[in-house]
């Protein structure tokens, strides 16, 4: 089992941002959470990794959780090597587990996995957005997590960099066999990475299915989302 969410609810002040949602992601599977901006997608990820507290419901996870943030969130005072090795050097249960030499080798291996060998001494400010994202992938997988959460992994990237990132998401799933959740509203990311999809609107699940089901546009929600239409049940004003 990877992640199981049952009847999850979250309110901010008196506004319900996540309303009684349930879903399950098995190991080696990628779930895409899609929806318009402000629909509560990123909140779901923050609830799963414990950055915010849920109001009610159950979140069951197996093992370590890693997260790739929308803007990479690399620690800008550390170089690439120290960013990737951060958990190995600073986490209480891992601090004394590895020698300096072992840590260097692990960092090299993870950097090679994301196609960025030889940039250990560079600082985040010296890297492009796509490279920062790939370094944050390497940082996420350094502890061999069972669950990987991606928050808008291709946001702000050019189409080619987006394709590269999408390929790495699939590759990491195959190599780590982790249960993954990708929050996105980009069709290419959904189609190239997801095994299944849930669509959120105002904190409610309005569609569950596969990428093929989404493309069939059988419901007013899927039709509006795929055609990017202003006409339909989802109004931006409510967001």
């Amino acid at each position, binding site marked *: 089992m990877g992640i199981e969410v049952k009847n999850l609810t979250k309110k901010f002040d008196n506004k319900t941002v996540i309303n009684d949602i349930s879903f399950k992601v098995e190991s080696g599977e990628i779930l895409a959470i899609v929806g318009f901006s402000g629909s509560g997608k990123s909140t779901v990820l923050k609830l799963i*990794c*414990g*950055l915010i507290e849920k109001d009610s419901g159950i979140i069951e996870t197996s093992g370590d959780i*890693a997260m790739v943030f929308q803007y990479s969130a*690399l*620690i*800008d005072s550390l170089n690439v090597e120290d960013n990737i090795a951060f958990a190995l050097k*600073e986490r*209480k249960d891992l601090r004394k587990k590895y020698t300096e030499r072992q840590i260097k080798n692990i960092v090299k291996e993870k950097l090679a996995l994301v196609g960025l060998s030889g940039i250990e001494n560079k600082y985040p400010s010296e890297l492009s957005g796509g490279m920062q994202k790939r370094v944050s992938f390497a940082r996420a997988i350094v502890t061999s997590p069972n669950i990987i959460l991606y928050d808008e992994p291709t946001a702000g990237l050019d189409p080619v960099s987006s394709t590269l990132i999408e390929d790495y998401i699939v590759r990491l799933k195959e190599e780590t066999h982790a249960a993954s959740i990708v929050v996105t509203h980009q069709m290419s990311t959904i189609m190239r990475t997801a095994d299944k999809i849930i669509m959120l609107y105002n904190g409610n699940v309005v569609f569950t299915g596969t990428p093929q089901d989404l493309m069939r546009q059988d419901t007013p929600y899927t039709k509006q989302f795929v055609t990017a239409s202003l006409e339909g049940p989802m109004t931006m004003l409510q967001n």
Partner: protein
Amino acid sequence: MRDFSLKSTITYKLYRQIILQLEDFLSTIGDIVIYGKEVLSLIFKRELDWKAIIEQCARFGVSSLPITLSIVGMSTVIVAMQVAGEMVKQGAGNYVGMLVTILTVREEGIIMSGFAIISMIGSSIASEIATMRVTEQIDAIKVLKVNPIRYLFVPRVLSGILMMPPVLVVASLVGIIGGGVAAHLASELSYRAYFESVWTGLFIKDINVAILKSIVFGFTIALISCVCGYNAKGGARGVGIATTKAVVWSFVGIVLWDLLFSIIFFF
């Protein structure tokens, strides 16, 4: 159509603003106490990263030294220049060194060092941590299961505790020597007369209290700066608000401590 509801009235908005400010004030005090307790607990448990502590000590002590020495030195020179001439005229030239020393060791050295450290180091700590907060770097640290208080607060607070006393000692020495030069230039008071009177009014208790005060000030400045940065919200504006809040709260914090020390030791 005009809105006549209660929420649209100026009185309601004013009260709401006051309540929000009060809530923020109380929650900041609460956070300072809670995080302060956690930092001390981690220090006593020796959850220390010495490499990070040394880096922060260099920042706290060495980088701040030129500005601290300038501020303490100049303020002491100003005092000496203003009092020396008058005291010599009144036949009290032999007490100039004593007066400048008591003033520097008991009050001016430490409070001016505190102000210099707040402006230079406290503001930089707060803006650094606030930027990490608004760019999700602190969230990333938490997701990686690293304790952000141990990683961010402990090295900075410990460096404040360790570096403030030496900064005070050096700044006070520079201040006293500068005061002697200023007194000589302003009133032709001999160096011998000045430096002999330095020791007349200085007691071990003054030095001990000054050292203790500097430790408390270092702890207060670093902790408040960390807490204000850590609680930042929003984007660039949030970083600015956190930095201003850290400076203002640190100023108020050290002045309150100063008052408390004066009541306990000199009242």
